């Protein structure tokens, strides 16, 4: 008995969580303007990968002009250059599981045996090995995955060059002490990217990625020749985030393409792409993109810590990545922003957010986000601010309608008939006259059939799918009314609700509202408006508790922080001078307070 009471007490008492939740706290160096001094010293792996070697960052004191509180001298880490840091990173990645037997042997047949064993040749028909003689003299073979490489490229620029004896005249001259693999790398193969590798595990992975590995008899090195040429989709229009004004490019399934699409928009040396490998078995690369000098390093650290800690066999696409790294998996609202548009990613990066782009799905995840980002589209900033604000208001209305309209209808007709205008009430009553079901059954019946049409419309192939949505809804609705299953006014309610949910620009958010709607309808059916308010209160409490990478879900509003006037109402673009404060960006100012320089005649509109 006491046990039961104890457990009950535990259910009701509040206990702060023990685990170290990530908080994005105000930093001392935050908001100091220094756009062009990348602070890369912080870029080291997160705490759980501390077994790796730490960055050798020499510490050096440096004066920072202190703004307010006197002439304090702060210690600051000297920034590493990106190349240095990349090198350091590569060394770290190469270091683990480096064993003696995992190295390339100087015996060609031994290498061949190992490759055959590892890739399961001849059972595995995808991996090809081709033996040949370099310049008719030296034995060698190449290995590649059929289909992943561009075969004409391999034939023309690898095999032909290697077999041609004239290319090796220099090498076979008297007194040449040069290593054959160095010679080939420097003189023979005219391919843009060739790497030398010793570690077999890395070589296997490179082969799997579509590179060609060249093994040469007597060399303890393997040349990895970049010959990737697998089939991929070209850049197309985004499917889920269509806009009228603005860019029409969408991401593809190819990571490289996606990174390039973003880089094309931000031509800045501070745009950093870090690669992290996740997925133990499928070994997918994930690109983390951010703007150095703008982004808060704490966020980067946290993103990397979370990504590095993913321990799963199969991670494909950013949707799965997002689920692994989000803060509160049991909350209904999305905590990462999924977008298909490179221009959106670029604008988020410029605000100081981090984009996570992965292979396999044409989407990128942006963190940290707030509720208000889910209402915005890239179109809002492309059109003039009056139109942008108008579109946002319509969208907010759509969200309201999508979440509350069926609930409102149920509450009104069941509990609050006095609030309905008399004539409308009469027509509702008249149209419901021959319907045998209670309102709640009617509305659930119709909502579910509408959801069915939506889901079915997506699965039905091609041309039929699009027409089915409209025809199905029309005919089904009409027939349901004629058969006396539902009242006609309900068709309007459900149709408007559907329209409202289509107006939500963010698909995951739209999905969450579709679920929430049923909750509200249920609450309305048992308690009327009081139930809706109760549900809303609960939902708001829960949503206020969500954090996306240390940023509260309703951030610039609750808690109140400074941000550019671009939440729901969008003010003119020249007024949006600052990056959101809740991100604690390294550089807070986005543009000068006088971004329309031409208006000031003194200096003739020249940049100051």
């Amino acid at each position: 008995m006491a046990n039961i009471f104890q457990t009950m007490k535990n259910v009701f008492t509040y206990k702060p969580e023990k685990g170290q939740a990530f908080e994005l706290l105000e930093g001392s160096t935050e908001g100091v303007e220094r756009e062009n001094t990348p602070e890369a010293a912080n870029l080291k792996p997160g705490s759980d990968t501390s077994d790796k070697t730490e960055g050798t960052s020499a510490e050096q004191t440096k004066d920072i002009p202190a703004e307010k509180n006197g002439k304090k001298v702060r210690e600051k880490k000297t920034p590493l250059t990106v190349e240095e840091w990349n090198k350091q990173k590569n060394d770290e990645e190469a270091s683990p599981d480096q064993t003696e037997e995992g190295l390339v042997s100087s015996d060609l047949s031994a290498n061949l045996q190992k490759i055959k064993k590892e890739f399961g040749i001849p059972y595995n028909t995808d991996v090809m090995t081709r033996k040949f003689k370099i310049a008719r003299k030296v034995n060698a073979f190449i290995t590649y995955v059929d289909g992943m490489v561009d075969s004409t490229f391999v034939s023309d620029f690898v095999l032909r060059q290697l077999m041609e004896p004239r290319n090796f005249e220099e090498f076979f001259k008297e007194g040449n002490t040069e290593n054959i693999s160095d010679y080939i790398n420097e003189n023979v193969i005219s391919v843009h990217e060739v790497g030398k590798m010793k570690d077999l595990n890395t070589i296997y992975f490179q082969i799997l990625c579509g590179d060609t590995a060249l093994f040469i008899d007597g060399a303890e090195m393997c040349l990895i020749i970049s010959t990737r040429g697998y089939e991929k989709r070209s850049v197309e229009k985004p499917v889920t985030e269509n806009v009228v004004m603005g860019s029409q490019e969408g991401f593809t399934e190819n990571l490289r393409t996606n990174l390039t699409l973003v880089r094309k928009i931000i031509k800045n040396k501070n745009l950093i792409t870090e690669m992290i490998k996740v997925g133990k078995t499928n070994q997918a690369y994930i690109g983390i993109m951010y703007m150095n000098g703008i982004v808060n390093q704490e966020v980067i650290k946290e993103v990397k810590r979370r990504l590095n800690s993913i321990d799963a066999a199969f991670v494909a696409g950013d949707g799965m990545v997002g689920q692994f790294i989000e803060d509160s998996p049991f909350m209904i609202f999305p905590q990462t922003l999924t977008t298909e548009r490179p221009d959106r990613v670029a604008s988020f990066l410029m605000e100081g957010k981090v984009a996570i782009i992965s292979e396999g799905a044409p989407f990128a995840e942006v963190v940290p986000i707030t509720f208000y980002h889910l209402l915005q589209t890239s179109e809002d900033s492309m059109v003039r601010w009056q139109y942008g604000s108008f579109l946002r208001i319509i969208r907010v209305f759509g969200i309201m309608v999508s979440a509350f309209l069926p609930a409102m209808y149920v509450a009104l007709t069941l509990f609050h008939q006095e609030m309905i205008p008399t004539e409308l009430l009469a027509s509702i009553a008249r149209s419901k006259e021959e319907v045998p079901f209670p309102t709640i059954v009617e509305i659930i019946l119709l909502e579910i059939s509408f959801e069915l049409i939506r889901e079915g419309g997506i699965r039905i192939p091609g041309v039929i799918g699009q027409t089915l949505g409209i025809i199905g809804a029309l005919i089904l609705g009409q027939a349901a009314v004629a058969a006396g299953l539902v009242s006609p006014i309900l068709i309007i309610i459900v149709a408007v609700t559907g329209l409202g949910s289509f107006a939500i620009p963010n698909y995951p958010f739209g999905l969450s509202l579709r679920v929430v709607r049923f909750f509200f309808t249920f609450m309305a059916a048992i308690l009327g408006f009081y139930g809706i308010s109760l549900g809303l209160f609960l939902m708001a409490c829960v949503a206020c508790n969500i954090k996306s990478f240390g940023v509260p879900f309703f951030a610039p509003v609750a808690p109140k922080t400074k941000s550019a006037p671009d939440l729901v109402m969008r003010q003119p673009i020249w007024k949006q001078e600052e990056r959101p404060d809740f991100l604690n960006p390294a550089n807070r100012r986005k543009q000068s307070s006088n971004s329309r320089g031409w208006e000031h005649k003194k200096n003739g509109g020249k940049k100051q």
Partner: protein
Amino acid sequence: MKRVICLLLLLSYMCILFTGCFDAQEVTEWAYVYSIGMEKGVTDKLRMTVQMPSMKGGKGGGSEGGQEQGNIETITIDCPSFYAGVNMINSFVSRQINYMHAKYLVFSESLAREGIDSYITAFIRGRQIRRQMNVIITKGSASDFLKAHSVAISSSLSKKQQNLMDQGSNTGFFSDVTYGDMLDEAKAPYGQPIAILAAINDEGKFKPGEGTGQLPFKTSGDYYAGDLARRGGSKAEFLGTAIFDGGKMVGELNGDETRILLMLRNQFHRAFYAVRDPKMPNKTITMDVRGQKNPNIKVRFEGDKPVIDAKVFLEGDVLAIQSTIDYESKELKPILENEFRKLIKEQMDKTIKKCQLVNSDVFRFGSFAAMHFPTIPEWEEYNWLKRFKDAQVNTEVDFRIRRTGTMLKSSELFSTEGKKGE
């Protein structure tokens, strides 16, 4: 263990939540009453009438539904009290009577003269009773009136009820007084309640055939409800005001007097007035008259006798001048204004006298007199409502013509007799 307890708690919460369903009722389980009528019963204390629309529209709600909307069911029953009657009606009406959408509360005149205070103060406790109902006193039987009050030009009864009340502010012939207003005024020592006067017009006043155009003409508001000489339209007629002393009806005002009443109560919006042409008594000049600003009412005491100075401010546009006299001109405009001022002052004095005769301060002069009393007990002690009849009332009317319509100047007509006019 924790999981089990959470589940149990959830289930018990559900039990509490589901109690909310007990008063959930579908719209098809109610019968919505649009008007409630009450008069003296024949076989019981009260005869109650409810008017509700038939829900026989059926599915579709399309074109066929539109015709059906006109079907109004009027049910009359003798019963001891209102709520008892509601139950009695449910012995033959399959749906629960719901009067939260009732718009009219109709009392018969004989009941009102006997006193309706016991009714209006009684059923306000009901949750479904709305204070926005309009209170109507009808001459003759309330159930006959409601039967006659059917839809004529529109197909929807509730819309007709609403629109008709809005017309009150266009004509000033009746006030849109509500149940809540009446209740407040009946309970206040500052003034007396009023109600809308209505009656069935049986077209008895209408004389068929071509007449001769009777002169001198009557003013448009010189009628009580049911007296209009007319033919066609809905038989129910709203015109004039019933005035009360507490809960008892003591008199009635005609259309013109109602306009004056509204002017003094600061509820007058606009009305068309046909006045005698000062220079050609056989012709009329019609004006669109609006209230200009709040009436200026001051109450002072000469000894124990209250003296009331009331001044109303009106303005208006000229709508029609039958003669060709140029009343737009600077010289003639004051003549017309004076003529109208005289007319209104005359009517105002007459109306106030009439109300003083039955000692009913429906103008709410009491609220201005109360300023002279430092405490409420003293004010209640003074008993203004009793002393209203002794009050001396000085009235004044201010009227300005603002615009002259789409014509700046009246011009003469030409005929075989030459230039006509002047």
